[in-house]
């Protein structure tokens, strides 16, 4: 047990509560956001907007320190190129997200509600996540 495990647990808990309170734990709400020409529910835009405003301001404050509280350096992604893996991966992710209304966060958060559909989705998602780590980036 180290300090990063404690702060990681608290961050995961707050993240999960945020998903639930925002309504994003319900795939129906996500699908309705994506259904602009049908039963459109713009709520997801407010989730993203508020999250980016808070994280944008908070990151700026966090980066005023030379390093994070419990580690020697920040580990932000360094890649800059807009390449095929980025575009192809995002497109495949969008296909699945549009099919089920589930992305990784909400799917994992609602696992504890033990809906059969969520369990099927998460098992398949974990296989996909793992397989991607062994797939060469072309």
């Amino acid at each position: 047990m180290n300090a990063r495990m404690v702060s990681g647990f608290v961050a995961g808990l707050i993240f999960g509560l945020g998903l639930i309170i925002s309504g994003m734990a319900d795939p129906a709400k996500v699908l309705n956001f994506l259904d602009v020409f049908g039963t459109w529910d713009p709520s997801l835009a407010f989730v993203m907007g508020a999250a980016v405003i808070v994280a944008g301001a908070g990151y700026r404050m966090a980066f005023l320190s030379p390093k994070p509280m419990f580690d020697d350096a920040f580990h932000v992604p360094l890649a800059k190129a807009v390449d095929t893996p980025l575009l192809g991966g995002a497109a495949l992710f969008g296909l699945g997200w549009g099919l089920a209304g589930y992305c990784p966060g909400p799917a994992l958060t609602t696992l504890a509600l033990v809906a059969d559909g969520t369990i099927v989705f998460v098992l398949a998602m974990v296989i996909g996540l793992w397989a991607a780590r062994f797939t060469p980036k072309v």
Partner: protein
Amino acid sequence: MTEFTPLASSLGGALIGAAAVLLMATSGRVAGISGIAARVLPPYEDRETGARVAFIAGLVLAPLLYMAAGGTVVQTVSTNFPLLAIAGLLVGFGSAYGGGCTSGHGVCGLSRLSKRSLVATAVFMGVAFVMVLITRHAL
């Protein structure tokens, strides 16, 4: 139909943003769920596995805490299991291969003003919009 909830959704979004800031300020890492979940499995390339497992544990325990405090978690999940399995594979593989999902690219990436994340978010949202247009209005 689902109810439009601007206030609750903004509050929830602010909590998601706060969680991302907490992780960055303490561990110096982005709160990208696909990246964290993918690296809970072997091979292990660094010493952060324990912190990743702890993050996922917090995420999974959140609804139980919420319900214990008297809240109700609304959830409408499809019962079309083959469709969910295909969607799960696509979401898992695509997000890990593309280096992020709604949280890593959508929230953390946009907050860092990353061009890669802006492009990825536009692509997965655009594709998802078209997917729903087809499944709900064309089929």
